[in-house]
């Protein structure tokens, strides 16, 4: 398993004790900040992708992805300036025969909220620098991989790559 950090998540976690300590003795009770939760991702794809005329490489590669707040993502993708809650990278995702990847990745703790995963499966091993899908790579659709992070728990999510990029 692999983990990946983001500046945003670190900043949020660092702010929690400060937020909890705000207010004077005369103020109304300050509620404790919710306990962050984590996400455990594995990966899958569809029969439509497997049958796509644009699929030329074996279904095996490195998965890259970023997690955005659901409210920041429309059918056009993330709005300009939308922050990533965190990002992930998982090598050796093999979907050549498996319906779901045998390996998985766990995120760092993030705030309980609704999120969307946007990402790609790099099939031609050239996505490490740009992290942009190229023709023949798999990609997610903008709003299909949605999930909720629950306070203090690890939520398992299977990310589905619905599209062969062209």
């Amino acid at each position: 398993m692999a983990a990946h950090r983001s500046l945003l998540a670190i900043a949020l976690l660092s702010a929690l004790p400060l937020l909890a300590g705000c207010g004077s003795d005369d103020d109304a009770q300050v509620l404790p900040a919710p306990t962050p939760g984590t996400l455990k991702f594995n990966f899958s794809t569809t029969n439509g992708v497997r049958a796509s005329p644009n699929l030329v490489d074996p279904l095996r590669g490195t998965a890259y992805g970023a997690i955005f707040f659901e409210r920041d993502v429309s059918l056009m993708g993330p709005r300009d300036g939308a922050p990533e809650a965190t990002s992930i990278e998982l090598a050796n995702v093999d979907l050549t025969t498996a319906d779901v990847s045998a390996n998985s990745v766990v995120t760092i703790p993030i705030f309980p909220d609704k999120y969307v995963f946007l990402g790609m499966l790099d099939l031609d091993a050239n996505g490490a620098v740009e992290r942009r899908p190229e023709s023949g790579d798999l990609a997610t659709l903008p709003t299909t991989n949605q999930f909720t992070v629950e306070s203090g728990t690890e939520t398992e999510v299977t990310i589905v790559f619905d599209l062969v990029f062209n």
Partner: protein
Amino acid sequence: MTRSFKSGSALVCALAAIGCGSEDGSTPTTTAPGARDLRMEVPAADPAFLDFVGGEFTIEPGYEKMACTHLRYDGSDIAFSKLKTLQSDYGHHAVLLAAKEPLPPGTTEDCTDRASMSKYDAYTIGDQDLPPGHGIFLAGGKSMVLQSHYINTSSQPILVRDVVRMQKMAIEDVTTWAAIHITNTLEFAVPSYEKKKITFDCTVDKDVDLLMVGGHMHEWGSRFEFFYGPSEAELKSLYLADPWRPDYRDAPPITLFFTNPMRLKAGSIMRTVCEWDNSTTDELSFPTEMCTSFGYVAGSKEPVVCSIGQ
């Protein structure tokens, strides 16, 4: 990695041509005081672009709404090569459709009800870039609507206004005309608690090149496939969505042929196959469910539409 996946997402933003709303369309329509102003700023006029501005409307917290603003392009015939949609938080999509029953420009009507879709024709498909040199025709005097769809998951009312910006292209710069392509049938009914599969064929009227194809059904769709071939015995699958997921209603996967356009020859067959699994107490028919393929073709100035049952 902030913007890496935006390009992938925009690639598949294809649907408001068929963008479907809720069952009954009943949403509050009053402009609530204290609504959060999320109106998109209208860009400064730029001769390289045509800007279409939608009407302003409010969506109450927890509600979903589609509004259609009637517009008319009063310039001379022109082409465009790409669209850019300017939409705020909680926006689901915004797209230009052709108006079958034009109303005075600036008129905004509630088109949340799925039955409203019968008043519009597909014209554009989201922010889909076309290959270089390809342009879509915009005739002077064309009547359109800007359809804006919002889902307000916040705790406040929101006031919204969208903009669709067309990148103009001189007619003489167009090397290849492109147009929307649709196959559609109204002739189906899925009985309550049953599964159903239908197949319908359309004949290609003239030689064109398929640039993109996608499928459209609603939440009860289970499988979608699109075939092409010179004869029934030679049909080849060009697009498969299996399983069909409920989320595909608004954002289906698409197959692009930009780098390898698929020649569709006059007289050939386009076959659309839709399957549903009706888990409701009601029979499903148009527009609660749909069976439509969509996309772009090159080599046609006019939309290429085959609709069974209209």
